[in-house]
């Protein structure tokens, strides 16, 4: 990719220093946000207050405020100003405004949850080039993991097993543990011993893994049956302090599910993979819908606990928050920390050997393999990493909503996250976060606001903007792909790549967009045979 970049001349000219402008914008929008979310002050402002209360105006104010953080990233300014705007906005102004209007905190948490999801999907799609349409399944894994244990569901499961113990007793537990240990050990042993797999080794490995699954099921069942006597004590689920343990477990569980799903399907080509992941995502949703004992079916699980953190509550109280806002504020800070960690992991991974391997695979699988990149392993790591982010956020989502049902995890959600990644720019971390913010704002504030505003205009219910989410997602996907496939805040490498191809085929007066002028010629360009295209997309076959 050493083509002359169209962006190259632009970079030679330094951007003007906008420190002052940045700080001024920050102050102005913060003031606007604080005023527009202060009910008492709005009441005194009369007409102006009414205007600021308008849902669309409010959405615009919130967007303007969030744009600050974007400016801090984009503009050339003194580091202190950037830090002030970034930290000040997220740690000071948002919680402060949220004190008056809890829905603002709620919105920020949603944005950050989706930003984390988008960052996870970005690893899979943007970096490794594997189109995953069932991403929300991992989100569901995390959500249900916490949801089942931290709600009355758990005691109901225990009660069920108490009433239907079957032949289970303490020796079943012992046998289950023994089986698990033996089979796991033999799997490791076989792995170690066998250099080149033979038929016998493959079969014995399969047998051992089957035994491992059986052992785990026996152990789990025995634990449930033996714990059934405590069902009454767990009527509202397990202790809230297990939250931290489950935070780690949800990462693990989602990563394991990611590997399990990835292992059989990663050999497939790009679009087959998309279809399979879509299917598996649906399978998880159908299971959640039908395994009534564990997931309460389509009614969903409620109420789900959140963590209990007394010192944080005291701190929040001292800062003037109401007791009913404590848990939201706590989740806000938690999500903020999580996203910081995820972002850091992302950046480190991107610069690491693994990150480069991902990009190599995305660009040309065959060449990457020839250069010694282990394909399956590298793809699995991408899948598992992306999944683990989704898992942890799923758990926080469950704690925030206190209610989860299979409806929250349908295909449409996956496509929503995908459109965030695409809107922001595949492979670009700030872009993906921007995409998540834009799409979430659009979904939760702007569209409902427009819907409310147009409700009085006598517009028919069918074209109410609040209900046109699919159309808007579709338009985002199509227009971005047609006009700006590299996204709003492109990853430089990817932008070069996408435009590199264009420069090759039509380097003349066609402008910066792709070949929209659909002449017949583009098909016959020499050297662009379809076979070659297939391999570029990463076909393993």
């Amino acid at each position, binding site marked *: 990719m050493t083509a002359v970049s169209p962006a190259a001349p632009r970079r030679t000219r330094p951007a003007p220093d906008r420190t002052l402008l940045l700080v001024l914008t920050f102050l102005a929008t913060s003031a606007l946000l604080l005023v527009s979310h202060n009910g008492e002050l709005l009441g005194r402002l009369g007409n102006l207050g009414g205007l600021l209360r308008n849902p669309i105006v409010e959405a615009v104010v919130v967007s303007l405020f969030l744009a600050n953080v974007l400016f801090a990233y984009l503009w050339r300014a003194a580091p202190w100003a950037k830090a002030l705007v970034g930290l000040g906005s997220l740690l000071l102004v948002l919680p402060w405004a949220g004190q008056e209007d809890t829905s603002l905190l709620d919105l920020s948490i949603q944005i950050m949850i989706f930003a984390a999801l988008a960052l996870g999907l970005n690893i899979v*799609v943007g970096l490794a*080039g594997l*189109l995953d*349409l069932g991403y929300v399944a991992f989100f569901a894994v995390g959500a249900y993991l916490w949801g089942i244990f931290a709600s009355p569901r758990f005691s109901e499961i225990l009660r069920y097993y108490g009433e239907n113990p079957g032949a289970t007793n303490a020796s079943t537990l012992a046998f289950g543990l023994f089986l698990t240990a033996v089979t796991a050990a033999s799997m490791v042993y076989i792995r170690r011993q066998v250099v080149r797999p033979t038929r016998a080794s493959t079969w014995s490995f399969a047998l051992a893994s089957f035994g491992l699954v059986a052992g785990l099921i026996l152990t789990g069942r025995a634990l449930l049956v033996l714990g059934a006597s405590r069902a009454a004590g767990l009527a509202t689920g397990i202790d809230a302090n297990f939250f931290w343990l489950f935070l780690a477990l949800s990462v693990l569980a989602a990563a394991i599910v990611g590997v399990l799903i990835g292992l*059989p*399907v990663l050999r*497939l080509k*790009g*679009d*087959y993979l*998309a*279809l*399979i992941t879509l*299917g*598996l995502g*649906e*399978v998880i949703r*159908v*299971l959640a*819908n*039908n395994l009534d004992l564990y997931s309460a079916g389509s009614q969903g699980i409620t109420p789900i606990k959140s963590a209990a953190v007394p010192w944080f509550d005291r701190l929040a109280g001292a800062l003037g928050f109401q007791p009913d806002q404590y848990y939201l504020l706590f989740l806000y800070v938690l999500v903020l920390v999580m996203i910081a960690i995820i972002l850091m992991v992302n950046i480190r991974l991107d610069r690491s050997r693994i990150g480069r391997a991902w990009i190599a695979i995305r660009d040309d699988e065959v060449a990457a393999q020839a250069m010694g990149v282990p394909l399956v392993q590298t793809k699995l790591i991408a899948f598992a990493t992306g999944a683990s982010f989704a898992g942890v956020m799923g758990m926080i989502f469950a704690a925030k909503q206190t209610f989860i049902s299979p409806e929250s995890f349908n*295909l449409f959600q996956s*496509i929503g996250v*995908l*459109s965030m990644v*695409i809107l922001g720019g595949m492979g670009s971390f700030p872009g993906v976060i921007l995409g998540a913010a834009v799409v979430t704002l659009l979904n939760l504030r702007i569209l409902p606001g427009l819907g409310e505003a147009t409700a009085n205009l006598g517009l*028919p*219910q*069918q*074209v109410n903007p609040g209900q*046109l989410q*699919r*159309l808007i*997602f*579709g*338009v*985002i*996907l*199509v227009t971005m*792909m*047609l006009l700006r*496939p590299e996204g709003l805040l492109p990853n430089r490498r990817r932008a070069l790549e*996408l435009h590199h*191809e264009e420069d090759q085929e039509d380097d003349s007066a066609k402008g910066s967009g*792709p*070949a*929209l002028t*659909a002449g*017949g010629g*583009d*098909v*016959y360009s*020499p050297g*662009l*045979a*379809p076979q070659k*295209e*297939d391999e*570029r*997309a990463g076909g393993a076959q």
Partner: protein
Amino acid sequence: MDLATLLPFIVNVVVGGLVLGFVYAIIALGYTMVYGVLQLINFAHSEVFVTGAVVGFEVFRVLAPNPMNGYLKLLIALVAAMVVSGLLNVLIERLAYRPLRNAPRLVPLITAIGVSLILQDVLRVIEGFQGRFDLTYTLPEGFSGKFCSAESSCVALGNALRTVGIDLQLKDVILIVVGLVSLAVLNYLVGRTRLGKAIRAVAQDRVTAGLMGIDANRMISATFLIGGALGGISGVLFGIKFGTVNAYSGFDPGIIAFTAAVLGGIGSIPGAVLGGLVLGVIQNLIGVTNIFGGLLGIANLEAIDASYQRIGAFIVLVLILIFKPTGLLGKSNVEKV
């Protein structure tokens, strides 16, 4: 349990599955045509097919008071659906896929998903303006009865079928006939005509076909037209089979049909049909596992009900892609569309 009661039951389930399979097969043909030529999963095909179903609904609704022959109404509905869906498909290709012909493969795929979402909402809005969401087909007189019932002249045939245990509805027979006819026409079109030859040439190698004087863009448009027309037919058949359609009901049959195309070996016309029939039967069998479970006394089977049907399709898809990615009628003897 009792074989004498079970056997006719199984026969009926299988026959019902075959009838369903014809609908899937024709949708699958739409996927397979486009995939064969462009190597693109046309996600929007499921919406093209729903458009056909909606057009069919409108035709039947408008013609309902008209005393003309029921089969004529059906023909009008089919032709209208073919025309609308075919043109829609061509339009989609022209606006959304053609500009991306040389982009990396992920790009048109994402576009296809976007187009599919857009079409869903457009359909919903259009029908919503008339205050409709679930469109219930009002079939012409007599279409809902049994095949060869007492009044008609083919009583003997009907009785013969019933003695073997096959109990067909008239609409099932219509479905099979329409399916077979369109299959035959498609086979002729692709296998015997100049157009078909050119399409196959483009599918094989677009660049070389261009050098031989074939306008690849026109051939791709033609493929989309044919695929869309097939989608229109299958939409009407789907509406007749299931009775109701809404803007979002394309997803499930779309996925199943794509599975069928992959199962048969994507790009192959007989493969798509075979895959459709197999999946139709599998789906019908999953739908009645609870009855089997009851008959055979297996409790676990009873818990599996119709909601697991789509899981069945996905599991077939996963298995086929893992173990035989070329499909049942493997690539070596595939006649590429």
